[in-house]
């Protein structure tokens, strides 16, 4: 009954969508040179993970997947708050959002 409403879009389809989302997030994180957009890309990866969690939870008929998404939301919110505070802090010092400008620990 439950499985029937899952439809033609099986778990695998959702997982592939979430995987594509994750990959796009990764690629974005790697190619963008703007600190804020890089953090946005990490949010994109979170989205992919969230879809995978919910789909798997739905597949196993277990609500833990959705609870995990709540935690993901928590972490994403905390990360956004801290990361953006850092970005503001750093931007105030260097007036740029290029991560290369902050590479003082490099050789």
């Amino acid at each position: 009954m439950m499985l029937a409403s899952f439809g033609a879009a099986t778990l695998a389809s959702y997982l592939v969508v979430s995987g594509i989302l994750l990959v796009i997030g990764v690629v974005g994180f790697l190619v963008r040179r703007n600190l804020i957009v890089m953090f946005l890309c990490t949010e994109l990866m979170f989205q992919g993970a969230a879809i995978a969690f919910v789909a798997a939870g739905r597949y196993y008929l277990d609500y833990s997947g959705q609870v995990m998404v709540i935690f993901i939301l928590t972490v994403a919110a905390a990360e956004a708050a801290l990361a953006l505070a850092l970005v503001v802090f750093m931007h105030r010092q260097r007036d740029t959002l290029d991560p290369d400008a902050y590479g003082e620990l490099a050789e």
Partner: protein
Amino acid sequence: MISIMQSIIATPAGQIDQLVDIVAPTWAQFILWMPLISLVLCGLCAALKVKTKAPAIITVISLATSFVLTLMLYFGYEGAEVIHIFEWIHVHWNGGSFISDFALYIDKLTLLWMLFVTGLGTLIAVYASEYMEHDVGKGYARFFAGVSVFLFAMSCLVMGDNLLMLYLGWEGVGFASYWLIGYFYQRPAAVAAAKKAFIVNRIGDLGLALAIYLIWSTFGTIQYDGISTALAAHNNDAATFSAFGGWTVHAIPYLLMLAAFGKSAQLPLYVWLPDAMEGPTPVSALIHAATMVTAGVYLIARTYPLFQLDDYALPIVAWVGGLTALFAATIGMAQYDIKRIMAYSTVSQLGYMFLGLGVLSSYGAAYHVFTHAFFKAVLFLTCGAIMHGFAGQLDLRKLSGLRKMRGWKIVSYTMLVGCLCLAGFPFTSGYFSKDAILAEAFVTQGSGFEILGWLAIFTAGLTAYYTFRVWFRVCCGPEYYEPGDELHGDDPSSFHPHPPRVAINFVLIAIASGAIIAALPYFMDNETKGINGGWVAEMVHDSPARGGVPNAVVAVVDGEHATAHEGVANAVVDQDHATHGSILGMDPHKAMYYISGVVGMIGLGFAFFFHLARRKAADSLRNKLLASRFTRWLPIAMENKWYVDEFYIAVIRTPLWILGKLFALIDRGIIDGLLVNGIAGTPRAIAKWFSPLHNGAVQSYAVSMIGGAALVILLMMFMPEIMSFLQSTMIGATP
């Protein structure tokens, strides 16, 4: 003074016994501890930056206490005894043991040494309290701490009951010597001299360490008593020692000799002593003239029976001593720095002492040590007073007529006393002690001892010459002086010499009196009457360490002359007189009184002629010698100390330096460069390929991270395939 001395000697033994019996003999350890206490207090003074003469007072009081205790020990002496202080090293194992207690061995040889070590130490500390006063609050405490260390180490050396304690003291005095020579550490010359003294002494110390090891492996003990017992058990016969194939008993005396020659500045290793005069003068007087340098003589006297195990050991000692005496005297003749002259004269006199030991006259050697300690101390101290008063001037060409200057009379006449003794002027202490050695060189039959005797007599003439050269130049003649270079900011034109004050004058008189009185023991009674040499002879012969059998035949010089004169009563000597050597057909002991007196007078006469009566003659003689092509080498070589230092530099230092450079090249090139840096460089070279990954850009790290994660997932995904593939290849490989 003499009467007091005699009254002390004449005091019935009973009274002093009562005095001594009040306290147990263990108080004797405080002879050792007093300097150590003084060291600690001086160290405290240095730490608290005391700006008074407190360190000097502390040191003088503690050293005087040591001296008084030594006197008490002497008057209470009843026989050799060991005073056990604490257990130091006790190692036992299956079938052997190594025991070295912290114990004192008190016999008369020890007491003889301790008497002048502590006595002179006290007086020189008093002298130094005035001499060093320009350093009050700066190095004053450091100086007296050094003196205290020296006295402690010297007491250990002399009073120790085993060779390890002697070694402790041996190294300790070496260290104290280094400390005090380098006292003026801002002066490069002083630092270099300190280093030189230390390094040259290390050569001798190596010999001593090896000797102690060999003694322990041969006799199984390093305690003097134990060695004596072991020797007695073997009848003093070297052939019966079979340990290690029997070579050790022959090696021991040569190693000990090396040690003694290093410490006492004998021929191959004497070079450090003249340079050691860079230290403050009281140090030169105490350490480098009176006490420390006689440690070598003490060592040989203490281990005399070991030297008699080898047929050639003692003759070599005699020859080295005799040649050193002559050699150093020739250098001393041509020097202008009075302190340096005294230093070479010390080397020369030490040579006499070794000559005495070598020709079986250890009492002569000991007596000469005793008298030399006094007159050389007084000579150094007068030099020091002059140096102090004339702003460091030591050149005898630039000083003259001191005798007539105000305030310098005591210095001049005490110096005269010292010079007379050193020159062996008849009826002075040096005259008797030197005669004892010279005569014995003719009495004892040995390899070329007679030649050695004549050489020594010739040297005695040279000694008289160079000694009085100093005195006539400095103290007689017209009044004239040039200040030295240590003006402390004064204007040279307005310079006035400042004569010594109470403390220095008192000490000079006291030690000069001692130098005169030191002639008395030669005539003093002793319990075993008739021993040639009186009190000192008794002190030396009553030393159980020397074979454990006092007054007995201890030496076998050669088969025919089965008796030697060491410790043999006159009666025995008379019986065997036919076998003794003679000089010009006379008994050497009597003949030597005349011969050495005459030789001394001749030397004195030459000195009078060249340096007082016609001072220009000396220079003209020198010019004449220089003018002639055949003789010019003589004054040049003598003035340049026979180029020994240069020879050592060429023969020892330069090859070592080249070798060191070579090893440094090997070390840097092959070991450091190829092995160490090469091994360290390999990972670095490999890392160079990967280091672009660490470019500090966040995203490149992210690439590595994600790529790594992907690889891990791939590995997990294909693990079954990989495992089966591996298994198949393994199975395929096994058959």
